[in-house]
């Protein structure tokens, strides 16, 4: 009870800080310096229609690399934690079979979901969405498969290789930018191409695709590791 009261009081203090921020907030009428630069230059310099994507992939590509690394780390640590002390006797529990409807449905849906995921990340530079969203969609296909058959095992090897290869390509493209263009992760390694088309914005769509693959692989890895805990 004391704890609740103390927390309440402290949060009241934090609330006061927040209230202060809220009341002191004046929405800006004009784009600030940074945003104006993005609005003016993104399309010309990088050839990307989706400015958020241009920021995520190129201007702040290093953040994104870090972000992908966060997922990689999480997936790796989860694998490490759950591998630790896992008993090796594979206890095959008999589970009730998933319903016919679900099984058939997932067979039908999985390819479609995968296709959607790929579409989302390949078009990241043109439309909303991109690697992360696409990756999550790809992972949801895996999730669906896991739901229909809880004992299903994905090849860890395949996931790991996909994770590693896409990660390496991401870095490799970044380094290419460093060598052949203006800096690390500069997307202008390839020509910008025609604005608004699929093959435009330099290597941006390629990078975003690798991000998508990597994120998908990492999510899948997390999910399968957690799913396999059933074994023990």
């Amino acid at each position, binding site marked *: 009870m004391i704890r609740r009261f103390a927390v309440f009081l402290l949060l009241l203090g934090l609330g006061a800080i927040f209230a202060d921020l809220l009341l002191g907030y004046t929405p800006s009428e004009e784009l600030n310096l940074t945003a104006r630069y993005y609005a003016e230059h993104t399309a010309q310099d990088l050839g990307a229609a989706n400015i958020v*994507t241009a920021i995520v992939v190129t201007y702040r590509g290093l953040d994104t690399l870090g972000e992908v690394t966060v997922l990689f780390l999480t997936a790796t640590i989860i694998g490490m934690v759950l591998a630790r002390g896992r008993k090796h006797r594979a206890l095959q529990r008999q589970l009730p079979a998933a319903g016919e409807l679900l099984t058939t449905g997932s067979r039908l849906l999985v390819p479609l979901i995968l296709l959607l995921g790929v579409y989302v990340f390949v078009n990241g530079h043109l439309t*909303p969405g991109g690697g992360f969203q696409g990756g999550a969609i790809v992972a949801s296909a895996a999730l669906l498969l896991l739901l229909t058959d809880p004992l299903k095992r994905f090849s860890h090897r395949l996931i790991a290789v996909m994770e590693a290869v896409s990660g390496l390509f991401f870095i490799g493209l970044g380094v290419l930018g460093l060598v052949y263009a203006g800096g690390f992760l500069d997307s202008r390694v390839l020509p910008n191409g025609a604005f608004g088309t699929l093959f435009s914005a330099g290597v941006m769509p390629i990078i975003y695709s690798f991000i998508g693959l990597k994120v998908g692989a990492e999510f899948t890895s997390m999910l399968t590791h*957690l799913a396999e805990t059933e074994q023990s």
Partner: protein
Amino acid sequence: MNTVLLSIGVLLAVAMIGVAWLTIRATRIATAMLAAGLVSLFASVLFLFLAAPDVAMTEAAIGSGLTTFLFFFVLGRVRGGQS
């Protein structure tokens, strides 16, 4: 800013706070998790209104989708974990 949009916004906000209340005070953990996912889903709708489609998609896919699944995965493994 038209009133319809504004009232939808207020409605969403109220809904979110209500559901968030459920998250922190629900008796069953499963309810709390579901509520947290719902908060996230409402938020992604709000993001759309805030002209942030990228964020909306991400929040929907990752925040409310994957996260909630992760929660339930673990919940299933720890069988409630209530002491």
